[in-house]
C-alpha cells in the first residue's frame, strides 16, 4: 500500500469480529507505518469503532492477526501494551473530582511501578502534553467543570503523556469547534513528523480525512470498500455507494485541497412551503 508497509508500526490482517455471535467486521485489513496518519471512515454502524477496539486489544478478534511493532498483540502484557499504544475513546467518564493535571498524569501510569510517585520527568512529560494542547492554564481545574471540547483535549493530552508509538483515536474531533479541530490535527501531524508516531483515527468528517490523512480505509457493513490515498478512496462513486446519498467531490478553490460536500439537497431554504 505504501513504502512504510514494509516496516509497519501496526499491521492487521483479515480481521473478523462481532458481539454475541453477530458479525460486525469481516476480513478487514489495515496497517499504519511510523509517522503515518490513517483514517477509518464509513457510515454509522460500519464497524469503525469495533475495528479500533480490536487494534487496542480491548476486544479479541474471531480470527485474523494483529501485529504491533512486529510482535503479535496477544504477546504483550497489559502494561507493556499501554506503553506502546495510547487510545482516545469516545467516552470520557470522570466519576470523581480529579484535576486536569492529575488526569493527564494518569497517562504515566503504565510507566510507573506500583507504589511509586510521579517523578519530575513524569511531571515534565505531562506538562509538555498540557502545553501542547493549550491546557496549561486549566491544569488545576476539575475535569468535571470543563466543556466537552476541553475534556476531549484532556484525553488527548493524557494519551500524549503515555509517550506511545501508536495512537488510536475514536472520533478525536467530535464536539470540537473548527479551530480546535484544526489544532488537534496539526498536533497529530506534528507528532507523526517529529516522533514518527503512527496514528489511526476513525473519522466522520470526510473533509478532515481528505485534508489530514495519508491513507483512508473506507468501511461499509463491516467490510472494506476501498483503501489507499484520499484521492483514490474518497471518490463520488465510492461515497455514493457507501453512504447511499448524493455527494459532490471537488477541490477547494482557495487551497486546491480535496473536499466532499453533500449534494442530495438541492432545494432552497428561503422558499416558503406551499
Amino acid at each position: 500500500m505504501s513504502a512504510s508497509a514494509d516496516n509497519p508500526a501496526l499491521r492487521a490482517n483479515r480481521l473478523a469480529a462481532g458481539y454475541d455471535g453477530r458479525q460486525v467486521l469481516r476480513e478487514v485489513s489495515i496497517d499504519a507505518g511510523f509517522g503515518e496518519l490513517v483514517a477509518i471512515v464509513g457510515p454509522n454502524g460500519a464497524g469503525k469503532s469495533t475495528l479500533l477496539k480490536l487494534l487496542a486489544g480491548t476486544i479479541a478478534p474471531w480470527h485474523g492477526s494483529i501485529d504491533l511493532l512486529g510482535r503479535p498483540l496477544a504477546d504483550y502484557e497489559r502494561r507493556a501494551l499501554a506503553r506502546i499504544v495510547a487510545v482516545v475513546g469516545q467516552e470520557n467518564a470522570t466519576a470523581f473530582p480529579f484535576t486536569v493535571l492529575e488526569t493527564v498524569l494518569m497517562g504515566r501510569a503504565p510507566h510507573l511501578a506500583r507504589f511509586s510517585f510521579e517523578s519530575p520527568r513524569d511531571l515534565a512529560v505531562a506538562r509538555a502534553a498540557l502545553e501542547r494542547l493549550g491546557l496549561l492554564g486549566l491544569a488545576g481545574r476539575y475535569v468535571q467543570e470543563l466543556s466537552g471540547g476541553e475534556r476531549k483535549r484532556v484525553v488527548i493530552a493524557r494519551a500524549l503523556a503515555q509517550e506511545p508509538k501508536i495512537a488510536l483515536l475514536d472520533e478525536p474531533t467530535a464536539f470540537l469547534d473548527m479551530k480546535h479541530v484544526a489544532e488537534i490535527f496539526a498536533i497529530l501531524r506534528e507528532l507523526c513528523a517529529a516522533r514518527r508516531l503512527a496514528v489511526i483515527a476513525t473519522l466522520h468528517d470526510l473533509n478532515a480525512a481528505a485534508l489530514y490523512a495519508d491513507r483512508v480505509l473506507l468501511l461499509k457493513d463491516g467490510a472494506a470498500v476501498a483503501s489507499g490515498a484520499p484521492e483514490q478512496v474518497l471518490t463520488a462513486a465510492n461515497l455514493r455507494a457507501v453512504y447511499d446519498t448524493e455527494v459532490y467531490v471537488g477541490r477547494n478553490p482557495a487551497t486546491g485541497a480535496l473536499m466532499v460536500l453533500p449534494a442530495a439537497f438541492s432545494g432552497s431554504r428561503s422558499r416558503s412551503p406551499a
Partner: protein
Amino acid sequence: MTRPAASLDHFASEAAADGLHRAHLTFARLLAVLGILTVILLIVAVTACAFGSVHVDLVRAFSDRAGADHAIFFAARLPRVLMAAIVGAVLAASGAALQALVRNPLAEGGILGISGGGAFGAIVALIVGARLGAPEGIVPLCAFGAALLSTVAVYRLAVVEGRLEPFTLLLVGVIFNSFWGAAIMIVNATVNFYVVHSILFWLMGSFEAPTWREIATAAGLGTLGFAALMAHARDMNLLSLGDEAAGELGVDVDRVRRAIFLWTSIMIGAAVSVSGIISFVGLIVPHVIRLALGADHRLLLPAALLGGAAFMIAADLLARTIIAPAELPVGAITALCGGPFFVYLLRRGSCGSLWS
C-alpha cells in the same frame, strides 16, 4: 521521544514555577496531610480516653497500678476507644474503595448489603446460641461468616458475562440490604423483650466492652485489607476514567474489581462482627476528604483511615457522655451528625477544593 536530560530539568523547574505542584498529589503533601491527620487522631483519642461517665486521670492510670483509674482505663476506656478507632478506620477506608469500585460516591458497606448480612448472622447466632448454650464468642464469628456469605451472593448475582458490573452490583446490594433488614425485623418480632435489646445492639452499633481478642482480630484483618487496598490505590484512580480507558492504561480491571470487593468485604465483615451496623461513616468520611483534599486514592485511602478513626472515636465519646451514665447507640450518633452534614455538602454544589 527522549529529550536530553537538561531540557527535562528545565521542564521540571518550569513545572514548579507554574504552580503545577499544587494541581496534583505530591509525596510531600501526602506526608503533610497524613501527619496532620495523625496528630488530630491522637488528640481525639487522648481526649476520649480521659472523658466518659467517669473521669479518668491519665497520669494516675499509668502510675498507680492498683488504683481505680488504672482499672477503668485498661479494662473499659482504652479497649473501647481502640475498637471505635479500628472500626471507624476500616469502614471509612473500605467505603472509599467501594466507591472507586462502583464509580459512584454513594457506595458503602451498608448499601451493598454486607453489614446487613453480618447483623442478621449475629442475631441468629445470638438467639440460637442462647438456646443451645453456645459460648458467646460464636456471635462475632457468625456475623463475619454471614457478612462474607451475603457478599458472595451479591457478587455472584452482580457478575454479568464473567465481569463484575458496577451498576448491577449497586442494585443487587441495595436489594440485599433491605432483604436483611426485613429478615431481622421478622426475627425481632418473634423473640422476647430481653433478646430484642441485644438485637438493637447489632442494629444500632456499639463499642461496649470489646474483648482484647476482638480488638486484635479486627485490627489484624483491617490492616491486611488496608494493605491490599493500598496496593490498588492508583488502579482505583484509573478506574474512575471508565473500564475501557483503565484497561487501555494497563489496569486488569476485572482482577482489580474482584480484589477490592473481596478485601472490603472482609474488612466490613470484621467491623460488623465486633460492633454491629454503623452507617454513614463509610459514606461521609471519604466524601468529605475527597472534597477537601482531592480524589487521588493514594491520599484518600490513608486519609479516610485516619479521619474515620478520629470521627468514630468522637462519635462514641458523644454517645457515652451526652446522657451519662446511660448511653446512646453510636450508630444513631453517626447518622445524626452525618446526615445533615452530608446534605449540606451536597447542596453546596461545587466540588471546590480547599487549595486551588
